């Protein structure tokens, strides 16, 4: 596979390490009254979609960017590649 890195252009997938569902960005608030349940869901529950899937890839043999790659699990077509920092900020994460 080839991942079109937003900063570095097309790179072979062998340069990357795969982590999993991009929902791992949405780490719950530790002070939430339901923190234990929410952390459980965050850690253990994953969708396994047929079709587009947003997932985290780490450019370990490269610039060490974490990327959010939108990939079709059926065709392996890559629809979108974003820097995880941008996605995290869009999802309200900051400090």
């Amino acid at each position: 596979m080839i991942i079109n890195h937003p900063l570095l252009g097309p790179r072979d997938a062998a340069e990357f390490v795969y982590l999993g569902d991009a929902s791992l960005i949405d780490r719950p608030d530790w002070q939430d009254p339901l923190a234990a349940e929410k952390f459980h869901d965050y850690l253990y529950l994953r969708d396994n979609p047929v079709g587009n899937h947003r997932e985290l890839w780490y450019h370990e043999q490269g610039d060490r960017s974490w990327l959010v790659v939108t990939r079709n699990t059926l065709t392996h077509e890559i629809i979108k590649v974003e820097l995880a920092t941008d996605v995290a900020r869009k999802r309200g994460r900051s400090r």
Partner: protein
Amino acid sequence: MSQPHRINGGLTDRTQALHFTFNGKAMQGYAGDTLASALLANGQRLVGRSFKYHRPRGIFSAGSEEPNALVELRRDAHCEPNTRATVAELFDGLEARSQNHRGSLEFDLMAATDLLSPFLSAGFYYKTFMWPKAFWEKFYEPIIRASAGLGRLSGQSDPDFYDKGFLHCDLLVIGAGPAGLAAALAAGRSGARVVLADEDFVLGGRLNAETMQIGGQMGSAWAAAAGGELAAMGNVRLMPRTTVYGAYDHGIFGALERRTDHLADTTGAPRQILWRVYARRSILAAGATERPIAFANNDRPGVMLAGAVRTYANRFGVTPGRRVAVFTNNDDGWRTATDLAGKGVEITAIIDTRKIRPLASIPGVVIMTGAHVTGTAGRKGIKAITLNTGQRIPADCLAVSGGWNPNVHLTCHQRGRPVWDNDISAFVPGGDLPPGMTVAGAANGTLTLAAALKEGHATANAALKSLGFTPSRSQAPVAEDEPRTLEAFWHVRAGRGRAWLDFQNDVTVKDVKLAHQEGFRSVEHLKRYTTLGMATDQGRTANIPALAIMAECTGKTIAETGTTIFRPPYTPVPIGALAGRARGKDFRPYRLTPSHKWASENGATFVETGNWLRAQWFARPGEKGWRDSVDREVRMTRASVGICDVTTLGKIDIQGRDAAEFLNRIYANGFAKLAVGKVRYGLMLREDGIAYDDGTTAHLAENHYVMTTTTANAVLVFRRLEFARQCLWPDLDVHLISATDGWAQFAVAGPNARALLAKLVDAPFDISNEAFPFMACASLSVCGGTPARLFRISFSGELAYEIAVPARFGDAMIRALMAAGKEFDAIPYGTEALGVMRIEKGHAAGNELNGQTTALNLGLGRMVSKKKDCIGNVLSERAELNRPDAVRLVGFKPVDRAESLAAGAHFINRGDPADMDHDQGWMSSVAFSPMLGHSIGLGFISRGHERMGEIVRAVDPIRKREVEVEITSPHFFDPEGERLRV
């Protein structure tokens, strides 16, 4: 050395005779021959025995689809079994042997297996040899395994080497037949970067095997000229002897180039190269493969594909027989007759299944239409054929044509499924092709020459346009389309004897019918039940006829019956090529510490820790075993001073205004208030609350920290920190860089550690206990200006420091340390002594942080802050992880101090049975303590912290040992920690 079957013409170089042997017999061929064509030229019809029944078999095809002619090439360690003689290029001195027979090829002792065939039908594994059950593993299976089989491996290490390569192109053209050449010419002339790959060693594909003309010249001459034009273009890379074996995601192709397989002397060059080709567009022009017609005893040597017979005659100047008969269901078979007759070979009969007007008349040839071949005669090579009329016709070669199957394989490597084309009675590429791929020529079902040339040309131009190139104005080469009508006809019903479909795996028409009868009707079931198409040739000549027969049985159409899924590789890829240079130790090269050279000069024994090679101990003359050395290293370190290379620990440089806050969230314990110049031990949890890694982090300067991780987790912790920084808290001002390789680091431990280092530290730095107390750190210089970092931390429990210098000074540093330590009798110590000392001190290491233990289990529960957000603290509070009877890390001493302990033993209370229900915990680390004079252990036991002094059993059922142990504090040596603070 005559070649009785050599005839005039062809592309071999008659001026260049090549000598080779087959089963030790000297033979001769010419440059440009394959082993198969040379064997045929020498009259060698019998070349192998079939896999299951040991039936005599001959060369069947002229290409990579060959099911029969598998041979061993070369000798000793260079021997390669299961090579197809039909693609092996002949060279001078080649040694070839037939395989899968006991005794000689001619008198195979295993041929009796054929007599047992009634018991060996499809699925016989599951039927005949079921009883008695115990016999399967010990008796039946070994016999079956020994009797069936292919070639033998040499059992020696492969002396050749293999490379890997990467190619990028605008257009990859797969196959250099007429369509591929036309496509490559069009693309090359437009200026696009083109790779043209073909599995053959001569470009042209079928053009070299036929007598058709292009632009007024012979097809083979046109192909050679086209190859010359392409070779002269700087933007085109010609890759003969290269099989594109797989189409992968995003325009990536796997290709195997056989670089020196055809050379007698291969020294210095890689044997094969595994290419990864990145292509923006691709054209599959892989041609088509002819399929046979099944009839009784159609597997005898001399029965061949009609197209292959033409190949041998036209390309190699070899006739496979003196009296050739043709059996066909299409126009193509007739060309075999006319081509061979044109070369003076006697044609005895043309049998066409169709009731048509004869397409040719050759004097003296029996021409039968609407007729079938119902059998053959001749055990080790056919002598005659029998027709459905009862007529017997002499023939030593029967050329069979059942039509052509487009080589659609690569179109199916992703999600594509081929579709049935009634016009040519074959599967052609369907939808869902790999992105960027188009198909041209016979691979696309375009089976005639002029149309294939046009399609190749047009397909290339379309691909070029889509890439933004302007196609050249050149026209497609001009040729004529040959007649190509066909009647779907798969097998002859009449006749006695088995009719073979899969020659390599010995699957017959009857086996397919049996599979149907027993309910294995889907093509995937048929394949697995009968092993159809599961041999090294993947059933390239067998699958479609077998599907057609299954379709007949079920009353469905072939389109409804479908095909099995085509997966890479198209033809076998040697494991050696996949491994490339990554063999033996090169698979995972060692990482060496900066003191490695010094350590090897000083008698170190090394141990692999991950990729690192670390000194395990330093034996001295007179020491009888490793324990002597390790015990001495511990004693001398604790008595005076010892030095250990700890470079392998992961080091992460952390900087930024929010570095402290970041660390505070990464570690379970507090880091927000760590002062500059101080070091703190930190424990990391996983998000699920399990302990993950530990180490120390030093606050070197404002907003600047250096973290150490365990050796094993150096890469993983760094990855995790980057995840936290980028994905969880993107606006924290913190930056990371891995510094593991950048710094050489040495532990200097023992009562004289300070005195030793004082000699090396540059003035005015003060390392007195007052100025530089336990857990202090500083940047400084040593040895007269070498930059260094000093940490007063201790894993051994002694007064100890770790000193780091830039890695390039590591070798000089160990030598300086040892020289300075001479007056103190300083010694180097290895990982074993390191381990003994940490067990004496009760420090957890990899055996304790094993991915199953929590901070509570490790006795570090109070370190986990509940007043801050950090990775893992929420789920570390789960009830199950905090049960009152949770295991706790404690120490263990054998009640009988003379006993040794074993890690992995499980604790059982006295009087309880030793079973899982009564399991109390386990021993994780053990050592002989030279300081205490007996064995000690660390381990986890339920409520351990409340059970000091209790005696339990350490049961080790695997090693059949049991030792009574006393539960103690894990701090065996200097429990108050007085030594490290002096």
